C-alpha cells in the first residue's frame, strides 16, 4: 500500500469491529427506511397522538437518540475488543 500510516500497530480487533459496524449500520438503515416508508405511505399515521407528542416527532427524536445509543454501544464493544484482542505491546495507544 502506498499510503499506510505507521502511527499505530496492527489492530487485532478490526474484523470484529467491521462486522459489528456493518450489522449496526444495516439495523439503523432499516429503522430509517421504515421512517421514510411511513412518511410516504401514510402521512396520516405520523399524526397519531403519542402522549403529548405524535408518531412523527417520537419516531424522529427516536432516530436521533437511537443513533446516539448505537454509537455508544459500538464504542463500548470496540474499546473492550481492542483491549482483549490486542497484545499489550501491540495495543494501540490509548488516548481516552
Amino acid at each position, binding site marked *: 500500500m502506498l499510503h499506510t500510516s505507521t502511527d499505530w500497530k496492527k489492530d487485532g480487533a478490526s474484523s470484529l469491529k467491521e462486522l459489528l459496524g*456493518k450489522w*449496526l*449500520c444495516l439495523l439503523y438503515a432499516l429503522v*430509517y427506511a421504515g421512517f421514510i416508508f411511513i412518511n410516504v405511505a401514510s402521512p396520516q399515521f405520523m399524526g397519531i397522538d403519542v402522549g*403529548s407528542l405524535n408518531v412523527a416527532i417520537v419516531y424522529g427524536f427516536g432516530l436521533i437518540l437511537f443513533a446516539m445509543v448505537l454509537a455508544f454501544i459500538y464504542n463500548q464493544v470496540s474499546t473492550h475488543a481492542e483491549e482483549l484482542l490486542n497484545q499489550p505491546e501491540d495495543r*494501540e495507544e490509548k488516548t481516552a
Partner: protein
Amino acid sequence: MNYQASPWAIALFVIFVISVLGISYYFARRTKSAKGFFAAGGNIHWSVNGIAFAGDYLSAASFLGICGMISIAGFDGFLYSIGYLAGWIVALFVVAEPMKRLGKYTFADALDSKFNSKGIQIAAAISTLMVSIFYLIPQMVGAGSLVTPLLGLPHEIGVILVGVIVIIIVATAGMASTTYVQFIKGTMLIVFSLTLVFLVFSRGISTKPDQGGDVPFRGFKTIPVTVSTDKSVALADNSYAVKKMLTFGEGEKQLLFVLLVKDSQETIWKYNTKTNLLEETLYTAKLPNNTTLYNGAPKEQAQFYQVGHMSMIDGKSDAKTGTLDFFSFIEKIKNGVVVRWNKTLLADEGIKYTIYHQNPTLGSEILKPGLKFKVDSAKGASLMDKIDFISLMLALFFGTAALPHILIRYYTVRSPACARKSTIVAIAAIGLFYILTLYMGLGAMVNGVIDLTNDNMSAPLLARSFGIAIFAVISALAFATVLGTVSGLIVAASGAVAHDIMDRFMEKNMNDHDKVKAGKIASVAVGAIAIILGIIFKGMNVSYLVGWAFAIAASANLPAIMMILFWKKTTSRGVFASIVVGLVSALGLILLSQETYTNVYHIINVKALVPINNPAIISVPLSFLTLVVVSLLTQPKEAR
C-alpha cells in the same frame, strides 16, 4: 423588513475574529510540515476533533436554513435534521476507522491506497473540488445575506470580509487553526442554542406574542365586503378606497386580492370567499424601475412587520400559557391553531407582487409531514413526488460520510480508535443540536419574529426577541458558522489541488516545504474563487446547492469508498468509472430538473426533462452498478 445593525453584534463579531486570527498566528509558527498543514499534525485530541466535526457540519444550512424552514413549514423542515444526523451512522460504522487506516491527508489517498491509479487520483480530486465548490457557494452567499441585517454592510463587503478572514485562517495554519475555530464555534453553537430553547420555554406561548413586551402584537384586520359576480367590490369600511383587483389562478382555486388605498398608503387584502371578509396581507412590490416597496412603503419606514402567532391555544382565541417544557411546548402547538403565511407571486402592470397571506393551520398538521414535501396522496402527491422525497432522504443518508471536508477530519487524530471516538462525540453533539432545531424553529413560528422576506433569519430574530445580548451572540455565531465551514471546505479543496493533483497525479515530487507552500497558494486561490462565486450568486435561492453537494458526494464518492472496503474484487478502473458516472449522472440529472429550470435558468412553464429534483435515487445505484460491472470486466488475469 428593515434591520438595524447592533453595536453589540459588531463588537462580538470583531472579538471573535480577533481571537480566531490570534489562534491562527499561534498555530502558524508550529505548522511547518505537510502533515501539520493538511492534518493538523495528526495529534488533535478526539474530543476536540468530535466537537470540531460538529462545527464543520453544522453549517449555515443547518443553523439558519433548517430553523427557518421549520418556522415556515413545521415538521418537514425537521426531516432535514433527521436525515443529516442519520448520515453520521454510515460515517461511524462504515467509514471512520478504515478511512483513518488507509489514508494520509485526503480521502483520495484512502481510495487509491490499494491501486496507485492516476485515474482514481484525478477523479477523486475533481469530485472533491466539485462538492466543495457546491458547498462553498451557499455559505458565501449566506455570509453576504447575514452581513446586511447584522452589521449594516452591503452583500459584497460581507462576502469579501468572510473570504479574506477565512483565507488568513487557512493560509496561516491550515487544518490546525481550522480545527480550533470549529471547536470554539461548535461549542458556542450548542450552548447558545440550548439557552435559546430554554428562554422559549420560559416565555410560554401567547395568542398575542409581543416579543417579551418589546414589540406590541399587531393584530390583523378584516373588512366585511360584498363582491358581486362582475367582481365589483363594496366595502363596509368607507375610509378605504378600492384601487384595483389582482387575481391568481383559475376556476375554483382562484385567489382574489384587492389593492386598497388609505391615507395614500396602498395595502393588499385577500378576499375570503367563505367568510366574505377581506383579510390583511403583507406584500412586496417590485416596481419597473427596480425599487421595491414593502407594504406600500420604502423599507426604512418599517411597514413590513414580523409575523408568526397562534390564533387558538387549547380552544381559546385569547390565551397565554405559563412556562413550558420539551413535551408541553409541542402539546400546546399540536392542540392549537397556528397562523402560517402562504406566498403568492403575481405580476400586474409591470409590477411584480409577492403577497403573503394568512393560512391558519391546525397544529396537528404542522407537526406531521406534508406542508413542504408532497407525500400525502390525499393532498395530490403523485408517485414521482414521493420518489423525489425518498431520493432526498437517501442523499442525506449516504452523502454525509462522503463529504470531503468531513472525511479529512479523520486525519487530524492519532489513531483509528480516536477517529471512532471523535465520530461518537460528533453524533452526540450534532444529535443534541438537531433536536434543538425543532424547538427553535417552532419557537420562531409562534413568537411573532418571522421575517417573511427572509426566513433564514428566523433563529437570529427569535434570539433578538429575548434581548440584544443574546441576539449579538447568536449573530456573531451565525458568522462564525460560515467562517468555520468555509475554512474546512477550503482546506479540503486545497488538499485536493496540492496533494492529490500536483503531488500525486502530476508527480511533482514536492518536498514537505513545497507541499505546504502549494497548499497555501491553493487555499488563497480557492478562497478567491469562493469570494467571486459568493458575489455572482447574490440574491439567488441557493439553499438547494447544499442538497446538490450531498447528492454528488453520495453518488460519486460513497459507492467507491464502500466497495473498496467491503468488496475484494473492486478494481481501480471500477472505482474510476464509478466516481465519473456518479459525478456526471448526479450533476446531469440536477441540471435537467424542474427546480433548476425554475430557479436557475428562470424558464417558466416548461416541463423539465427529468421528473425529479433529487437525483440520488438514480445516480447512487447507477454508480454502484458501474463499479461492479467495470470491476468484473477488468479483473486481473489470475483472478478470472
